[in-house]
């Protein structure tokens, strides 16, 4: 097997418990624009890692590297690697099919994006894509996923109604259920509550808190209170670079870098 870069190897010996993924020497280019520069960061297994930073700092760009979303558009280029453990696969290797990556890593978008289909079909879609045909299996997994996303009680009597009829918060939980139905190893959240009201936001945060027992979570947020509430680890990014990474408690109480301190105290950003 190919050996991971030294930046990545450094993380795997961490005393903080298992590592699910790690970025090593990651740079990213939109055509000629260098959006990410030499990012090195570990993602701890079954923990929530938050990515914070001012608008345009590259946090969403970084998140979208994990499921090779950038491959959908021409002119994008990765350098370096993102290793997924325990199998030590480099997600960014050209020979790794982005579809394989996306089957292992789920993503929840900024704006809820349910398909214009029924609630049931939205959740079942991931299973159908994987070739599952057995009605009983699909029924079962749809129910499990909706229960895990704390949505089952609200929709169990109207699984065949359109997903668009749900409220914004329900739609976002449906999108989470859609990912959970296929048991992802890592779940990416791209500012999942920025389009939601405070109450819906609260229920999503509570859900993230519950989900970390079964899945590793990486969340982009522009809301520092949210990062402080939901995450175990926080990475602060600025101008395409990773400025500081550490336990959320440490980052918010005693940041090591001046730029991090300026941002979290509200002097910048």
């Amino acid at each position, binding site marked *: 097997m190919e050996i991971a870069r030294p930046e990545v190897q450094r993380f795997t010996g961490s005393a903080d418990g298992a590592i699910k993924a790690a970025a090593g020497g990651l740079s990213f280019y939109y055509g000629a624009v260098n959006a990410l520069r030499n990012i090195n960061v570990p993602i701890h297994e079954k923990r929530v890692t938050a990515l914070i930073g001012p608008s345009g700092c590259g946090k969403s760009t970084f998140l979208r590297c994990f499921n090779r979303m950038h491959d*959908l558009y021409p002119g994008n280029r990765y350098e370096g690697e993102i290793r997924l453990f325990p199998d030590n696969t480099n997600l960014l290797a050209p020979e790794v099919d982005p579809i394989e990556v996306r089957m292992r890593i789920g993503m929840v978008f900024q*704006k809820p994006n349910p398909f214009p289909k029924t609630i049931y079909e939205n959740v079942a*879609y991931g299973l159908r894509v994987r070739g599952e045909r057995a009605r009983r299996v699909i029924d079962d997994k749809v129910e499990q996923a909706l229960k895990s996303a704390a949505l089952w009680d609200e929709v169990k009597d109207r699984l065949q109604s359109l997903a668009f009829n749900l409220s914004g918060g329900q739609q976002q939980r449906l999108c989470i259920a859609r990912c959970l139905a296929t048991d992802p190893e890592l779940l990416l959240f791209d500012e999942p509550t920025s389009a939601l009201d405070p109450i819906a936001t609260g229920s999503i945060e509570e859900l993230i808190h519950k989900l970390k027992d079964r899945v590793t979570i990486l969340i982009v947020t522009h809301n520092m209170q949210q990062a402080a509430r939901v995450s175990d680890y926080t990475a602060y990014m600025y101008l395409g670079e990773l400025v500081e990474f550490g336990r959320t408690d440490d980052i918010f109480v005693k940041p090591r870098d001046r730029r991090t301190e300026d941002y979290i105290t509200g002097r910048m950003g």
Partner: protein
Amino acid sequence: MDAPRVREIRSVIARGKRWDVVFAIVGIVCLMIGLLTVAALFVDMAVKGLPRISLEFFTNFPSRRAESAGILSAWVGSTLVMVVTAVTAVPIGAAAGVYLEEYAPRNWMTDVIEINITNLAGVPSIVYGLLALGLFVYQFGLGQSVLAAGLTLALLILPVVIVATREAIRAIPAAMREGSYALGATQWQTVRYHILPYSMPGILTGVIIGLARAIGETAPIITIGALTFIAFLPSPPFQPEPPFLSFEWLFAPFTVMPIQMFNWTSRPEAAFQVNAAAAGFILVLMTLAMNGLAIWLRYRLRRNINW
């Protein structure tokens, strides 16, 4: 605020609003020029033709005697040709549109193809007729048949269908596509479960508008040699005994509505002019009905899809 300043502001607004009135009047006049001309033509045709329209008019073959001549072979011919056109243009046009939007690499080849599709929409229909005469009628040996005519008109409306498909696909938000890919879907799964269903209203609208244009086309049909006088119907596509379906009608000689009209207008007798007006009235109604169908379908299919 002092009174003179208020008065000044009011006069500026009043002067500005005069132009609103002027433009509104000019606009209404332009609109009326277009609308009234078409309406006058239609009403004139309806007044002339209506007395001639009866059940027999639809069930009679053309005849040398104007009062017993009908449009049976013409409307049946038009319908059959439209069926062939729709069945060939929809899959080819939709597939081409999906390919260009979803699969084609963004390079100069694709650009050249795109420009040419737009150009094709502007090629005079007689040119398509000549192409079809050489290719379908002689080269492929289809003869002067319903099939040859249907394929010719399919070529003619293909650019319309492709453009409509592409526009419908572009209207699908990127979030839908990304949502599908993020769940591990392949390109084809994304096309099959999302792109095609969501763009179907737009594609169908394009198809029907294309068909509404094709049903009135005369030049290419004459070029490939449709008959002007025909007193029998193609064999029916459905049969009482197995295999129940017959495709002989595809190779039958035929005529279509606009040719029947053209034939009657070129007769010297006044009675045939009435027939031509009546046939024209029916043809316009057929076109309007198709446009109505397009609007209804779009409304029906879009009910569940609103972004």
